[in-house]
């Protein structure tokens, strides 16, 4: 049995559910969204990731209908939705504050949208029960929002926004108010529910770990522009810019000048007194072009002797050790003053750790470990 990979974005015949076409949104002088073009496909779990003020919430509010684009069009299933008010869109939103109606019970909150559609009572009852079951809230149906916990409130908000079976569900920082443990559990729950209902989810978050965990694709945004849209693996392993590499996870950036070497590889001249680093790259760089090598700390090895077969190795001394429990990050200072981070798994007890402060060490990595970036 072959399992088909879910990747509608690679299929040119697939019609996107949402199309942003040259969308710009200005608030007075301030440009929140700058000429944005983006496709989101059916059944996707799409994450908008960026620092606060990058325009991700504005994008979501335009999808919900609370803001209209200054220019450009947004299409939902091939229809321009600019003129459609929020209450006429097959789009529902889960608010960051949950926005549960405090005067209504959990049951009434979930039934709220269904009642507006004037559905028969039996149908509403059945649908609300289904939602309560999906979010495991059966026991709390009669309670008011202030009588349940934060995690339960979050699930009520989710159930309420899913009750009308929207084509598209928008989640605005849905887990922001939860503590770390509950958050992780809820992330998997969200993915589970998304899979069960087959709804397209668009999630806004500033938490990169959350975006990486839940999303089928991630759009990294900065100052109203989308920097890169790709699967979490691609975003992490093959960022297209220093900004994206730096925003997602921890990274070492080594700047220098490129010089073509053997086919598919380049030399990075980063310091006069040191041998150049070797890095493989699909992109061509011209001789002498300024570029940056982005390399993840976990791909940098640390050793006391120069490793024999490593393509890139450089000596330095341990400046700092960040002990994270399962991992340790070593900050290694090179003779040029550049600090490289190397991460190792703590498979041994801490007392048996090989290196300590001020130890001279070698850091090394392979030619394919890093990404060479032009910008």
């Amino acid at each position, binding site marked *: 049995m072959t399992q088909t990979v879910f990747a509608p974005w690679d299929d040119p015949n697939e019609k996107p559910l949402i199309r942003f076409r040259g969308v710009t949104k200005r608030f007075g002088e301030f440009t929140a969204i700058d000429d944005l073009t983006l496709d989101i496909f059916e059944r996707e779990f799409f994450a908008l990731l960026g620092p606060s003020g990058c325009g991700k919430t504005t994008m979501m509010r335009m999808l*919900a*209908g*609370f803001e209209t684009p200054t220019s450009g069009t947004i299409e939902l299933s091939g229809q321009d939705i600019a003129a459609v*008010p*929020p*209450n006429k869109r097959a*789009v*529902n*939103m889960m*608010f*960051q*504050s949950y*926005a*549960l*109606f*405090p*005067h209504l019970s959990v049951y009434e909150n979930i039934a*709220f*949208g269904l009642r*507006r*559609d004037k559905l028969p009572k039996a149908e509403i009852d059945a649908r609300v029960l289904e939602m309560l079951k999906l979010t495991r809230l059966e026991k709390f149906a009669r309670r008011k929002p*202030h009588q349940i916990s934060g995690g339960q409130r979050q699930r009520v908000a989710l159930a*309420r*926004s899913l009750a*009308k079976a929207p084509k598209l569900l928008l989640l605005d920082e849905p887990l922001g108010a939860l503590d770390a443990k509950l958050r992780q559990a809820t992330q998997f729950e969200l993915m589970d529910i998304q899979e069960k209902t087959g709804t397209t989810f668009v999630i806004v978050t500033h938490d990169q770990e959350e975006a990486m965990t839940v999303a089928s694709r991630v759009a990294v945004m900065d100052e109203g522009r989308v920097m890169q849209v790709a699967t979490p693996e691609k975003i992490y392993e093959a960022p297209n810019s220093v900004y994206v590499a730096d925003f997602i996870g921890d990274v070492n950036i080594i700047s220098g000048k490129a010089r073509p070497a053997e086919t598919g590889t380049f030399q990075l001249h980063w310091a006069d007194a040191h041998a150049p680093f070797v890095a493989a790259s699909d992109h061509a760089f011209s001789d002498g072009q300024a570029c940056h090598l982005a390399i993840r700390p976990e791909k940098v090895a640390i050793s006391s002797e120069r490793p024999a077969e490593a393509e890139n190795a450089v000596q330095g001394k341990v400046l700092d050790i960040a002990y994270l429990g399962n991992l340790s990050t070593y900050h290694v200072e090179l003779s040029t003053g550049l600090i490289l981070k190397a991460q190792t798994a703590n498979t041994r007890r801490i007392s048996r750790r090989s290196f300590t402060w001020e130890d001279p060490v070698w850091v090394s990595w392979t030619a394919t470990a890093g990404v060479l970036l032009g910008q």
Partner: protein
Amino acid sequence: MQRFILIAVPYAWLLALFLIPFVIVFKISLSDIALSIPPYAPILDDGIGPFFAALDFENFVFLTSDDLYWKAYVSSLRIAAISTAITLLVGYPIAYAMARAPEEWRPTLMMLVILPFWTSFLIRVYAWMGILSQEGFLNQFLLWLGVIGEPLTILNTTTAVYIGIVYTYLPFMILPIFAALDRLDGSLIEAAEDLGCSRLQAFWLVTIPLSKNGIVAGSFLVFIPALGEFVIPSLLGGSGTLMIGKVLWEEFFNNRDWPVASAVAVILLLILVIPIVLFQRNQQRQAEAET
């Protein structure tokens, strides 16, 4: 001990300024009218035994024998209820607009609502006489506009009383409703719209229920003082406006019948206790909901 002192202060206040005066008024209501100073009998100088023997409920019985009194009570209740409704209809949109106004404007708007309190209540009511009279500003303005051919008779009618009460008590309606609306989370309205409500439905299903406590508080704050209102009906109202506050004043100062006037006051107080208790319950429930 410290706690006792802390509680004792408000209780002493209530005792001195509410309970003792009430007991005095209640005692007078059980007395008989007399041509003396004070104008009622018995007084304690007569001795304890004769004093208590002379007290009776005669005045309360008298109140039931004359239509004037119960009609005045009913009329007061009606005027208070209608004015409360009008105040709500006028006050709610004002409070709503204030709560929706830009943040930097709100203190100014609040100030404008409170500003009339800086002038004496009596002077403001007199000012209304100048506005509403036959040759008053309102009539002159309407004549000048050509809307009316002859001046309207507003002053000394029940309409003028309504205008006076609504004007005077409007801030008491606006402020609690504004407080409720100000706290209302705007995303609740967006959520309602997102779930399929029109603007109007969202207002009806979310904004109104969530400002209910403000509406109830404001209504009581208007209804309770309006029920016993005396100055407004006596200055703006005519002979046709029957209000218990006015009857009470006339019993005291025109008829000099203190015992009957006291009986009227005691009954009025008993009527007022009901909405006051309801108001307190509402406040308490609101406080509980917030914790």
